[in-house]
């Protein structure tokens, strides 16, 4: 880790515990989530957002450009708003038209570049882009709320506060593409830049700028300003489906970096010997805020609603356990986290996120370690006995599974020919398992383990004879060095719920108000409560925001 001045820390939570799907699927945003880090970095530079172009008709259709200078570089969000018939509005990534489309542009676009983006961005995947285009995105209106807000403002009133609270955003993005998709810039173009070098920083900057654009658009069409507290509570929605799920599997070292940083942060705060009165007061304030946030988190999905209800039942009991004696005792946070295993996994993970919140000075520097320049490598000097030992140590759970059992191989991942999107099929009912995507990591490692059982000598000779195991060898060796690099569950069993993978990743983005629509896609809200464009001087106290409605 780059953070050289290492504070004291307790042992990290074991990867065998942390990297289980169910627990990953209970993750909450925290102060090291990318949007939070971005806001702090923007604030540190006193970044100004300037709206340099606003060419909209009275209905709010046209384009706009927002300019920021950040980390010594200029960036521009080019936003395009089009008139979309209601029957074409869908959350799914496979849609072909959207209310709005966006490009985060590298530099200050001249008129010809603006014209190019205005012509191409509404077509999204059907267009091609260039290396000056850093991020491509689109968003649909929450028609119910957007129309209500506009009509209210036009009538000289503020929108209904309950409706603002229950929806939480004016628009919802359905894709935010980075890293070379459709010809846009590879991540390598920006990975060494101050500010945007962290993981998904360009995407998060885009999302935050889009959120501001949605406010501007509603106020422009409505002809009046929104109250600041209402506006602040309007984040940007997002719909995320299976397309995001394989990311965590395909980027094991990045997954390790994210999880390792979060767990290191927790280990640091657990090592705090004693809390100051201010810190205790801060924790009490946040505990109350969490209770309010839970009360405002309402979703129609029965399973998710039950989990939230459990949280709501457990939270007051947990809060009552934070007695002055406990808070003034020795290593109080360690004691709190230790005691948290009496609660549901959701409550446990919420406590983790809570306990990170007051201790920015101790942990914020860890955010620099969340990007990794490394990629998995094979160590050819390892001998096969050592490789077997690593499998025994880290992958016994995978080797214990009988993958021929119908329930343990019930699902298969694949890419659909029709939409080129990841899908999850039923192996026993659907065709295509013979060309499944290789996300069956645990099964691959068990197969490697069998092949290794009677092999002596070095990994080189083994891999020359068994090239089919090269990928699995790389993963085993990587996990031996990067203990949070793998999800420690069978991703093809009937118990695998992709929503857990989505929520883990989205929590690192800073998403909240998870609103699952099935076990494979979810809506979320980003940047709710985040500073507005002109509020970056107060950029860091919006964890689990609560509408004061």
């Amino acid at each position, binding site marked *: 880790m780059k953070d050289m001045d290492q504070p004291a820390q307790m042992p990290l939570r074991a990867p065998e515990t942390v990297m289980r799907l169910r627990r990953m699927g209970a993750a909450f945003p925290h102060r090291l989530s990318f949007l939070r880090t971005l806001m702090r970095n923007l604030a540190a530079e006193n970044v100004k957002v300037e709206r340099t172009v606003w060419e909209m008709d009275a209905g709010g259709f046209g384009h706009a450009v927002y300019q920021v200078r950040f980390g010594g570089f200029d960036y521009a969000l080019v936003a395009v708003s089009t008139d979309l018939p209601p*029957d*074409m*509005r*869908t*959350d*799914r*990534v496979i849609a072909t038209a959207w209310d709005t489309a966006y490009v985060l542009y590298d530099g200050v676009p001249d008129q010809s570049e603006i014209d190019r983006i205005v012509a191409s961005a509404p077509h999204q995947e059907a267009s*091609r882009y*260039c*290396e000056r285009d850093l991020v491509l995105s689109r968003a649909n209106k929450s*028609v*119910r709320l957007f129309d209500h807000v506009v009509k209210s403002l036009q009538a000289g009133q503020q929108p209904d506060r309950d409706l603002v609270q229950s*929806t939480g955003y004016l628009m919802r993005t359905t894709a935010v593409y980075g*890293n*070379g*998709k*459709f*010809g846009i810039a*590879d991540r*390598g*173009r920006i990975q060494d830049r101050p500010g945007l070098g962290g993981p998904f920083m360009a995407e998060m900057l885009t999302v935050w700028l889009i959120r501001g654009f949605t406010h501007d658009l509603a106020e422009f069409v409505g002809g009046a300003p929104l109250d600041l507290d209402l506006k602040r509570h309007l984040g940007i929605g997002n719909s995320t489906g*299976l*397309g995001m799920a394989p990311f965590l599997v395909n980027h094991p070292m990045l997954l390790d970096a994210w999880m390792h940083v979060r767990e290191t942060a927790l280990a640091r705060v657990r090592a705090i010997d004693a809390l100051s009165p201010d810190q205790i007061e801060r924790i009490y304030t946040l505990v109350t805020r969490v209770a309010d946030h839970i009360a405002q988190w309402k979703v129609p999905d029965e399973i998710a609603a039950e989990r939230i209800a459990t949280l709501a039942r457990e939270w007051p009991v947990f809060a009552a356990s934070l007695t002055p004696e406990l808070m003034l005792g020795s290593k109080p946070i360690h004691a709190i986290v230790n005691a948290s295993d009496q609660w549901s996994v959701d409550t446990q993970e919420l406590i983790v996120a809570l306990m990170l919140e007051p201790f920015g000075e101790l942990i914020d520097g860890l955010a620099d370690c969340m990007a990794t320049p490394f*990629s998995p*490598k*094979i*160590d*050819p*000097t390892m001998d096969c006995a050592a490789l077997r030992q690593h499998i025994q140590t880290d992958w016994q759970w995978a080797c214990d599974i009988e993958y021929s059992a119908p329930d343990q191989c019930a699902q298969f991942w*694949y*890419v*659909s*020919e*029709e939409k*080129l*999107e990841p*899908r*999850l*099929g039923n192996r026993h*009912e*659907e*065709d*295509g398992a013979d*060309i499944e995507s290789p996300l069956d990591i645990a099964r691959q490692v068990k197969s490697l383990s069998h092949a290794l059982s009677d092999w002596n000598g070095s*990994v*080189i*000779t083994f*891999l*020359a*004879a*068994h*090239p089919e195991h*090269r*990928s*699995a*060898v*790389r993963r085993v060796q990587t996990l031996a060095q990067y203990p949070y690099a793998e999800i420690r569950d069978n991703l093809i069993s009937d118990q695998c719920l992709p929503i857990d993978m989505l929520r883990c990743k989205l929590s690192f983005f800073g998403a909240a108000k998870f609103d699952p*629509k*099935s076990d494979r*896609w979810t809506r979320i809200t980003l940047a709710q409560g985040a500073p507005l464009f002109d509020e970056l001087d107060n950029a860091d106290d919006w964890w689990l925001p609560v509408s004061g409605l």
Partner: protein
Amino acid sequence: MKRSINEISGMVLKAGRGAGLPLGHCEDLALAAGYMAKTDPLSLDILPRALKAPFAAPRVDFQADITIVNGEQAVMVAPIVVDVLRAGHSVVSLADIDHPQIIFALCAACQIGVMHEFSGTKLTLSRSGEAAAPPSPSPATIAQSVWDALDALAQNTYVPATEASRLAGAGAGLTDND
């Protein structure tokens, strides 16, 4: 058409899988292709020809002062060559390699410096320190015919949609006007 490095690497990975190349070798070939795209995009033309199944496992013969890797398919041999050089063996002998550029590219992408010498169909690689860091990515032009050939291989990994798969897709498949 110009493509980003990530697009090219991703397509090569899928094409390799579609051709039946072992997954780990596909991952290495994608890495090599990214380097080729950054440094010599025209060399990408060889990739469809390099992905001709069946793929045979090379044999490795460690001798006192040289390691002989027996195999003709660069997509199979290149990762083994990298392993051998990473393990500290300094000279590798190859013969009848179909597309040596892939071996050079993978070594360079792994920042392994090598000198090479051809003698007829024999190719000798000698370790020469670390290769320079690869240049920053910028989009590369790849011939449409090459892209199409790779795409044709990649399509072997795509599953045709059925009504069941559409219904069980990523989302509900409904219009959404909340």
